[in-house]
């Protein structure tokens, strides 16, 4: 737990603090500790089985939530990082390279928000510039050339809205990734591990199998953005989160994602190794299923082709 934890986690924090205090003398306080532990898990269950959409947003952005670099270290071996877009720069908001997953050679790309303040600044809080998307595309094409399956990890507030990003064609960079990803002749598996922020997330998300961790979110706009633009009231973010239908559960119902990956009770941050194990199983199963498809790009296109709701 962290002091920066969201409000709804505070009751848990309180109990944990109490337990810690009693643990100074574990033998004497054994009974009380056991009771509190039980209370802790009960309270946690109660909170986490009734999460509101906005609480999921808070979990997706939780300061202790595992980031892409954690999944990379926890689930992949022999990672070889590749840098740069060969055009302008190396964008640290996106990490990508070659690796092995369960002994299978692959490419892996994801957005990285960074943990420490220094790292967050270096990684631009996980908000890629055009060169980040162009680096990602370069690695995707490399994967295609050498017939490697591609895994992408999505965790971004969105593509960076800045002067340089506009000058260097942020819109074009995203658009090209959408078009090119759609055509990749390799299996593409994407997972939203935290925040799926609009076009900046989708630019890594055109996949054969799209999954979301149970407490991640994926949305056309942030609840805060929606609140200030549509509700004309920045304080309405909670309500905006509800109407936007941005939870994994919503997206599964809308046919936008293929799978919800469960999280340990209390969220991925309570037990990252467990989370890696759960996600590894899902990735392996998804890869096995997609490997059986004859035409990866056509399979991908058909999925997206039928998205949307209208009447005739």
């Amino acid at each position, binding site marked *: 737990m962290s002091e920066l934890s969201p409000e709804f986690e505070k009751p848990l924090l309180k109990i944990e603090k109490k337990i810690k205090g009693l643990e100074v003398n574990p033998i004497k306080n054994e009974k009380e500790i056991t009771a509190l532990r039980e209370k802790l898990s009960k309270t946690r269950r109660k909170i986490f089985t009734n999460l509101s959409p906005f609480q999921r947003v808070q979990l997706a952005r939780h300061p202790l939530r595992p980031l892409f670099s954690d999944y990379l270290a926890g689930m992949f071996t022999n990672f070889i990082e590749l840098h740069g877009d060969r055009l302008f720069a190396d964008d640290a908001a996106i990490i990508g390279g070659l690796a092995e997953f369960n002994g299978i050679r692959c490419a892996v790309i994801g957005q990285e928000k960074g943990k420490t303040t220094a790292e967050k600044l270096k990684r631009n809080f996980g908000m890629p510039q055009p060169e980040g998307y162009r680096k990602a595309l370069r690695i995707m094409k490399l994967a295609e050339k050498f017939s490697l399956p591609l895994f992408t990890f999505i965790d971004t507030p969105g*593509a*960076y*809205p*800045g*002067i340089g*990003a*506009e*000058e*260097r*064609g*942020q*819109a*074009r960079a*995203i*658009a*090209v990734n*959408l*078009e*090119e990803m*759609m*055509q990749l002749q390799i299996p593409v598996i994407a997972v939203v591990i935290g925040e799926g922020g*609009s*076009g900046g997330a*989708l*630019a890594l*998300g*055109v996949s054969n199998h799209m999954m979301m961790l149970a407490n991640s979110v*994926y*949305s*056309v*706009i942030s609840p805060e*953005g*929606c609140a200030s*633009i*549509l*509700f*004309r009231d920045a304080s309405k973010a909670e309500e*905006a989160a509800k*109407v*936007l*239908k*941005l939870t994994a559960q*919503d*997206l599964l119902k*809308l046919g*936008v994602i293929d799978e919800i990956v469960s999280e340990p009770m209390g969220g991925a941050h309570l037990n990252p190794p467990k989370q890696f194990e759960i996600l590894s199983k899902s990735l392996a199963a998804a890869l096995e299923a997609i490997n059986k498809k004859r035409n990866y790009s056509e399979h*991908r*296109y058909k999925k*997206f*082709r039928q*998205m*949307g*709701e*209208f*009447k*005739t």
Partner: protein
Amino acid sequence: MFFFIKKSEDGLWLKCSACNEITYKKQLVANSYVCAKCGNYFRIGGKEYLNLLCDDGSFIEYFSDIKPTDPLNFYDVKKYSKKLKEAQKKTGTTDAFTCGLCTIDGVNACIGALNFAFMGGSMGSVVGEKITMLVEKAIKEKLPVVIVSASGGARMQEGILSLMQMAKTAGVLAKLAREKLPFISVLTNPTTGGVSASFAFLGDIIMSEPRALIGFAGPRVIEQTIRQKLPDGFQKAEFLLEKGQIDMIVERAELKSKVAEVFNILKGGKS
């Protein structure tokens, strides 16, 4: 800078929002909706762009039966279903994209235009589906495609489904490219967000009207993020041309002939 048409009481006279000059409507139309006095571009709708680009009487509308729903039961200060009805009443169209087949200076083409007056020209399921169907039609008929954009981006009221239209339209354009059929994207004021970050920036040729605002993020969002004022002319068509992001700036009155010229060289489709 916003350009809009202020209707006089009888609707025959229009006032320029930049110089206040009052012009007879017929005259303005003849001048491609550009103020004869100050050169200001009046903001016009998708149908006006179709009139500007298509040979007289050649346009046949397609896919007009695709209508919007309210898949999320969305509301903000108003219900989305209500906003839709208001926009439909205001524009006389079911959604923000009108498309079909036409000839442009004699060249057969598939054409579509976004209408900014319909919820900011935003792309939801209907816009995405119609663009996809239009491009599929082009593939089937072996025709070139031209799309005129004017949009704030993805339609927030349809949430994630709007976002997915970006991938869908990009995907169908990849198919068009494989058939070696040309796609001209015409950007007008404004073209931003999920529209610029998908089909609008995937043109073989990208042309823009003068002074149009074009970008990924809107200027307000950028200013709030970087906490500084943006330089003059930032994200205007002229700026994008200088930065290498678009092929050319074309005066509104020249759009039609320029599109036909490009199609005549690229060929690719039936002529």
